[in-house]
């Protein structure tokens, strides 16, 4: 039997200490935690900043790591520092080093890098080894060149190497969520179908339980021809429904999950209620790929953003707002010869659904003037001018000549700093494992 404890669905969200202690007390073989994603947008990969900052990362890592070391249980982190680039790994390792120093710990850490050199990505691109991901726009050479960081989602191989080297702590760069949890049981010879299916569910922590939470722990163990799921927190349960429904989450296809080394097919998966809080699962199939396929992610710098927030309440102005905004945009384009992007966001009208909006009820609009330009001071200047044009715009039938808009803040302009956009989200048909560097550090 192999038993895994998933600390939580996302490191940095605040874990449940009692659940962790109860879970690790069950005699687990390893503890895992996913620390990253692309869900919060391109900023983190592009800028090199962690999403969970030093304090948030440290408070979720310190106690569970110390307790795992005491028991000789390997602790495995995937997608460290959120985006999992080299710079994220160094920032994450600063936290680890402080924890080690302050608690006088002795341990072996394996750090696995999955950031790719641009030259390598260009070479792969030119040899036709990079393709679209499920129909997204094809990659262009400039997308690669403009990227500040490009990472690959590593599969399970380097995790296994780190564990076989005797790592007490594995700190992996960008990785598939399931690989964090698949490495150990695969090394122990468990059935890959069970391993991958369990890994795919427990990576989200107690999100597959009822009530669901990504900030709580989940136990998963493989025994014989099935695996079992149970939340250590007694106020939660795993049910056949909650476990099954989890296959839908964030996955475009509910029956098929792709990993670098193979495909997990869930069509014949069976879920049974084992006891009140435990589900027994079996029946999924794993098909190993002949050659691995990796997903790569890149982000590029797009400029600096300044925004201004203002409220519009006058019904006559709201009626004419689209044409007013068009007019102000035209004027700005004429006035400023520099490259910039001006976006008006009309909250209360279509700020959320954009072209899909169907409801025309309206009495107030929260307008965001959003300017991105190549320098912060240019974005600020353009935003400021557009804001004042709207403030004093003399629209047809205007009777209130004070100001057209309500500003909640002084100053109205807010500098937002650097802006990034995703530039790469594609598949590579090449064995990238040999490019992932494994660093051994003894403390």
């Amino acid at each position: 039997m192999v038993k895994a404890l998933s600390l939580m669905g996302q490191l940095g969200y605040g874990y449940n200490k009692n659940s962790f202690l109860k879970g690790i007390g069950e005699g687990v073989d390893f503890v895992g935690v996913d620390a990253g994603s692309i869900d919060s947008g391109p900023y983190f990969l592009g800028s090199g900043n962690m999403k969970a900052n030093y304090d948030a990362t440290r408070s979720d890592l310190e106690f569970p790591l110390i307790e795992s070391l005491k028991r000789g249980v390997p602790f495995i982190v995937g997608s460290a520092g959120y985006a999992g680039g080299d710079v994220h790994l160094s920032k994450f390792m600063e936290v680890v080093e402080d924890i080690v120093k302050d608690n006088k710990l002795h341990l072996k850490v394996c750090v696995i890098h999955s950031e790719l050199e641009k030259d390598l990505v260009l070479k792969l691109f030119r040899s036709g080894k990079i393709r679209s991901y499920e129909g997204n726009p094809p990659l262009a050479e400039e997308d690669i060149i403009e990227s500040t960081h490009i990472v690959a989602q590593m599969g399970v191989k380097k995790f296994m190497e780190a564990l076989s080297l005797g790592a007490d702590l594995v700190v992996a760069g960008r990785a598939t969520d399931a690989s964090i949890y698949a490495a150990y049981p695969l090394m122990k010879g468990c059935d890959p179908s069970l391993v991958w299916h369990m890994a795919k569910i427990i990576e989200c922590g107690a999100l597959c339980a009822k009530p669901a939470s990504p900030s709580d722990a989940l136990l998963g163990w493989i025994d014989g021809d099935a695996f079992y799921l149970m939340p250590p927190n007694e106020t939660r349960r795993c049910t056949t429904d909650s476990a099954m429904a989890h296959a839908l989450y964030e996955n475009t296809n509910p029956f098929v999950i792709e990993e670098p080394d193979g495909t997990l097919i869930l069509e014949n998966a069976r879920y049974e209620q084992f006891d009140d809080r435990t589900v027994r699962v079996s029946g999924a199939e794993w098909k190993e790929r002949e050659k691995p396929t990796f997903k790569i992610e890149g982000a590029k710098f797009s400029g600096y953003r300044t925004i201004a927030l203002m409220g519009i309440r006058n019904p006559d102005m709201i009626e004419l707002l689209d044409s007013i905004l068009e007019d102000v945009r035209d004027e700005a384009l004429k006035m400023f010869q520099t490259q910039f992007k001006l976006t008006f966001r009309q909250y209360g009208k279509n700020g959320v659904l954009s072209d899909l909006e169907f409801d025309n009820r309206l009495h107030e609009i929260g307008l965001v003037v959003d300017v991105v330009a190549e320098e912060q001071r240019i974005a600020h200047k353009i935003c400021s001018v557009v804001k004042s044009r709207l403030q004093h715009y003399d629209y047809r039938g205007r009777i209130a000549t004070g100001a057209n808009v309500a500003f909640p803040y002084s100053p109205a302009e807010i500098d937002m700093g650097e802006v990034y956009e995703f530039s790469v989200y594609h598949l590579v048909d090449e064995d990238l494992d040999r490019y992932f560097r494994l660093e051994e550090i003894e403390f």
Partner: protein
Amino acid sequence: MKLKEAVKVLRSKNAGVWHITIDIVFKNRELYEVAKAKLTKELFCELFSKEEIDYFRCDNLNTLKVSFLRDKAAGSLEDTDCLGANFYIPLMDIEI
């Protein structure tokens, strides 16, 4: 009956940078079967202005699932919903 009255869960979410996926989990088998007969792939294409979508009928979960490419990558300059968490809204009041 409106779709929102027939479901336990009606949610949308980004699946990676370029895709939106919508899960429609019905309260029971009966409501699922009614909706399954009524909600066609064409209807979803029209609602989301898409020429192509993936449509899954998950009988074991009483769930319909729709996935499609978004017009702009998550978090791009004009994107309004990075997590894609509001794409279910046009479905709430559909009559089933």
